[in-house]
């Protein structure tokens, strides 16, 4: 038994695991029963370890953690592909429910075409890996074969059809008569529903495709009151493919929240625009594992909205569409984007996205200001704006311009001196000219004058500004604190102050002008900012374990102890 919060803590937890272009969800019922819906990729193990860390868990005789029910939606590699690592990493499946195998055909890879059937390779590997678990039961299910998980929880099975024959379907959208033959795997997969205070629909890869009308069949069953599709949380079918999640389907489900599990690689393009548009039109909040990470939804909580495990806050479908296009094009993670302008979106982005996405702003300046408002340190601003390089450059240039205008640097001093001596040299050279030349230079041209040699040269007295480098503060003259640490040098006090001032400027300001104004108050702060905005983790890297304050405090302590000892010795007349 592992000590910690018990599994049966009275909370109905459902997790969507971030497993890339695959599917895996994990539920802990109020009574502590566990259900794993599909499992692919080794990340499942890592996610389960994180979820169960610190929980009180009963282990079986060989120390394994029991997964009470493994609910398979369909036998595809990205849904049942990796049961081996689960067992090797201390988990064991007890009971399996999977879709009725009379509803799909199999094929032998290398000998036959797939035609969207179940691969004997996947089925065989699934069984081989399943054999390593301590399986009590494997149950095939179809519509109506509900499974009791515990005294309070029933897992309802809405699909596949409970017949091994092809079933007739009338499509709501077109009125056409079609059917759902028992051949393809996705369309004949299992659809599950869980009910708590909120209900959740687990769709697997259910869809309408290649003359297999799985989603249409579900709609028809709902309309005939054979099943109830309505749910607060929709685990979106087939990673957000446009073969599913039609408007007609959403009209029946009416979810508050849709959760999509996919990566954002270009191979499949998931989640597809049409699905995001449908969700946007239906005002459904959307969470997406590629952006929001692993998600927890409590089916008995006050709200279905999960807290993201990344910094991505938006759950607007149009925002996610904008992020999908921008992030693919620039190979950045969606959670690093604060805002975008329409100009940032690649040409292929659908028009509705620019019209509907709340995260779209008009100018890059607004993105800079949003990043500054949300950040507490230069590093946070750097991290956000790096994802939109034009805005990053814009802020850097604004601070550089402000420094050029308001800060006297060594280069300014050098320029002043050179200008002064240059003017002085010209003046002296003029003084050395023959008298008649100087006389002619002072005559108007009509009386035989010539161009005056000092005409374009300033008077030395006009050269303003410091000409002595000692007038430039040390913090401006020396490299920033971060650069000094990089070189292994001791950071002097005023540079550490400049470093703090740069972060403080970001923390307190809401615009780039505000940051600049604030930087002007501390010598060296502009320069520190300019280094930190370009250098990852500049303010934290190479910092010694003990900071200067600690060192001073300890030195003071030692001195105090030494003084007390001297006083005591004196009082004892030693």
């Amino acid at each position, binding site marked *: 038994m592992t000590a910690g919060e018990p599994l049966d803590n009275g909370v109905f937890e459902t997790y969507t695991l971030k497993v890339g272009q695959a599917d895996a969800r994990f539920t802990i019922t109020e009574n502590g029963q566990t259900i794993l819906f599909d499992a692919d990729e080794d990340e499942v193990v890592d996610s389960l370890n994180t979820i169960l860390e610190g929980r009180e868990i009963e282990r079986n005789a060989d120390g394994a953690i029991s997964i009470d029910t493994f609910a398979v939606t369909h036998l595809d590699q990205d849904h049942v592909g990796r049961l081996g690592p689960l067992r090797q990493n201390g988990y064991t499946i007890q009971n399996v429910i999977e879709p009725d195998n009379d509803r799909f055909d199999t094929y032998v890879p290398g000998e036959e075409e797939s035609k969207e059937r179940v691969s004997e390779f996947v089925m065989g590997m699934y*069984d081989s890996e399943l054999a390593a678990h301590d399986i009590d039961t494997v149950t095939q299910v179809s519509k109506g074969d509900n499974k009791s998980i515990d005294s309070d929880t029933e897992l309802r099975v809405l699909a596949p059809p409970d017949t091994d024959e092809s079933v007739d379907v009338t499509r709501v959208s077109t009125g056409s008569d079609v059917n759902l033959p028992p051949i393809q795997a996705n369309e004949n997969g299992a659809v599950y529903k869980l009910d708590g205070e909120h209900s959740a629909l687990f769709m697997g890869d259910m869809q309408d495709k290649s003359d297999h009308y799985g989603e249409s069949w579900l709609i028809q069953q709902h309309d005939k009151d054979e099943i109830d599709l309505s749910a607060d949380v929709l685990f979106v079918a087939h990673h957000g493919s446009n073969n599913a999640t039609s408007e007609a389907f959403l009209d029946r489900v009416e979810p508050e929240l849709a959760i999509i599990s996919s990566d954002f690689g270009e191979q499949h393009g998931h989640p597809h625009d049409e699905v995001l548009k449908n969700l946007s039109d239906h005002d459904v909040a959307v969470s997406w594992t590629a952006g929001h990470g692993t998600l927890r939804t409590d089916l008995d909580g006050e709200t279905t909205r999960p807290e993201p495990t990344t910094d991505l806050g938006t759950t607007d479908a149009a925002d996610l569409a904008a992020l999908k296009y921008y992030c693919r094009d620039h190979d950045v993670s969606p959670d690093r984007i604060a805002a975008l302008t329409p100009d940032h979106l690649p040409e292929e982005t659908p028009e509705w996205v620019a019209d509907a996405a709340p995260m779209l702003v008009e100018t890059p300046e607004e993105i800079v200001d949003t990043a500054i408002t949300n950040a507490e340190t230069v590093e946070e601003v750097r991290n956000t704006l790096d994802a939109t390089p034009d805005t990053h450059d814009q802020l850097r240039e604004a601070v550089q311009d402000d420094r050029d205008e308001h800060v006297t640097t060594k280069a300014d001093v050098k320029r002043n001196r050179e200008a002064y001596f240059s003017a002085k040299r010209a003046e002296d050279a003029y003084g050395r000219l023959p008298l008649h030349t100087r006389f002619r230079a002072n005559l108007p041209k009509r009386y035989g004058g010539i161009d005056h040699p000092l005409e374009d040269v300033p008077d030395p007295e006009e050269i303003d500004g410091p000409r002595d480098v000692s007038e430039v503060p040390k913090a401006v003259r020396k490299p920033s604190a971060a650069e000094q640490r990089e070189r292994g040098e001791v950071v002097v006090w005023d540079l550490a102050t400049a470093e703090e001032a740069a972060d403080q400027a970001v923390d307190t300001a809401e615009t780039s002008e505000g940051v600049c104004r604030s930087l002007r108050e501390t010598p060296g702060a502009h320069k520190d900012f300019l280094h930190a905005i370009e250098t990852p983790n500049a303010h934290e890297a190479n910092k010694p374990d003990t900071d200067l304050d600690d060192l001073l405090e300890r030195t003071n302590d030692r001195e105090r102890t030494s003084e007390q000892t001297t006083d005591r010795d004196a009082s004892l007349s030693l």
Partner: protein
Amino acid sequence: MSEYRVSFNDIEDDMAHLTLHEDDEIREFLHYPINDLPMGLERADLGNQFRPTFDDDGSIVELQYDEELTEQKREEYKRAADRHRNRLDDTE
């Protein structure tokens, strides 16, 4: 030192799927877009064209598609698929 071998699984949705075996265990699945391959290849030869490389304790190893292993795994999984159907009959 581990022995690594690659078997060829399947082509689906224009992706070729292979399995990297480390000794007798599956280490990971490998996925290659077949559109990245030269034109005119015979489907039967596709497995030959994938040469995954990976870092094995500091040395980069290029793996060769293993036809014998592929055939062996194919037979093994066919038997396992049959076993799964029987398992369903037994436990239902």
